[in-house]
């Protein structure tokens, strides 16, 4: 399912999040032509991140299997020109207690989810460590410029709505994937991950609230099968945003 959902994302590169570290581990990781662009020791416990390149298909299969088994997290990068998935990354923008779901996050995920559903572009909303990821999956790839413009206008609509409700939009941080400016440097954790900071499974936000792990996988399967966005629908949705004055 993961390979099908994320079919359009390049599979020859990834960021791996793991508690495993040390040069013996790294040398095992960097076989079959796999190369390390850089490594990172995060401030979230003793979690290491490895930006890998030149990953052969078989090794990516192994990594995805390890991801599902929760041995590690796999994060993928977006294609540099066009993608059939897009994602709003909504984070708590505070230095402390950044894992907390603050009222502004709740408000904006409600507004943005409603906005996208109103456009016929149902999002898959997944809890992340500091907020939510709102994924959209399209039946075919769309140019990054158009995806970015769609996301920018949609986010602005949601932020304007919470501003009118009296919330401070500076309390939250939006990132867009793919982002024209940094598409080659930022990656996103795939569904099924366990967040490095709070170790919590990436639960799906359903109509009645956050689902448990089993129900999240069922929701994910159903989304993949029934809620992939038709290209014509996406184009109509984007055009309607362009018409806003």
């Amino acid at each position: 399912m993961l390979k099908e959902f994320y079919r359009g994302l390049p599979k020859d590169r990834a960021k791996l999040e793991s508690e495993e570290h040390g040069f013996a581990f790294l040398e095992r990781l960097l076989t079959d032509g796999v190369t390390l662009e850089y490594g990172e020791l995060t401030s979230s416990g003793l979690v290491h991140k490895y930006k890998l390149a030149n990953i052969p298909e078989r090794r990516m299969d192994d990594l995805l299997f390890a991801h599902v088994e929760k041995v590690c997290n796999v994060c993928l990068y977006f294609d540099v020109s066009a993608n059939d998935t897009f994602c709003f990354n909504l984070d708590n923008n505070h230095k402390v207690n950044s894992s907390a779901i603050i009222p502004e996050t709740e408000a904006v995920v409600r507004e943005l989810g409603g906005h996208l559903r109103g456009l016929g572009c149902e999002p898959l909303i997944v809890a992340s460590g500091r907020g939510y990821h709102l994924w959209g999956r399209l039946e075919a790839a769309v140019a990054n410029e158009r995806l970015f413009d769609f996301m920018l206008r949609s986010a602005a609509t949601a932020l304007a709505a919470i501003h009118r409700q009296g919330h401070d939009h500076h309390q939250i941080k939006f990132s867009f994937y793919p982002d024209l400016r940094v598409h080659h440097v930022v990656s996103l954790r795939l569904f099924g991950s366990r967040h490095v900071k709070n170790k919590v499974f990436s639960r799906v936000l359903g109509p009645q609230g956050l689902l448990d792990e089993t129900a999240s996988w069922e929701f994910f399967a159903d989304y993949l099968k029934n809620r992939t966005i038709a290209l014509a629908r996406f184009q109509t949705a984007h055009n309607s945003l362009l018409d806003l004055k």
Partner: protein
Amino acid sequence: MKTIAVDLDDVLNNFTETLQQTPFLRDETYALSEEVFQDYLAKVRGGWTESGSLLSTEYSFFRYKIHRRCYERAQARPDGVSFMHWLRQNRWRIAICTYRDLRRAQDCTRKWLADNEIPFDYLFMTGHKIAFCKAWGIEHLIDDEAVNITLGERFGVRVYYPAEKRRPAPPANPVETLCAARAFQTFDEIKAWIQE
């Protein structure tokens, strides 16, 4: 294999000098007025940090952009470059270990290293260099950060720092181990120390 971790900014390069002396000019990509640009620039040069509660702000983005330009423009220390070649010739494993955000700065960092013909094996970013060295079994760290200079020995990491970096004040708590880090005038001095 013998392994050493080496910092970049104000160790292999002259980052602070570059930050203070480069005449940064405002352009439209900053999306700031001249007044705000100059105010922010003075704050970056002064090492000012925001006291607010937010992670990402207009100022933090500006600071990254200025720092990135310093990463690109900074000059390599000739004795540092020679030392890195000596490490390579003597079969040391070299880990570049930096606070830089390599998600955004990897490309310019690799280009700078290549342009200056500095050999290395791996690039790592971390805000916790002593913890990184401890976790990865690295006994030697060349770094200029006061906390690393002070605490390295306590965690089994031998730290070497540029002499122009003022030695940190002794710890207030007498239980703390004495700072055993060594200051170097030139990188050549480190060769003997890491072979002891």
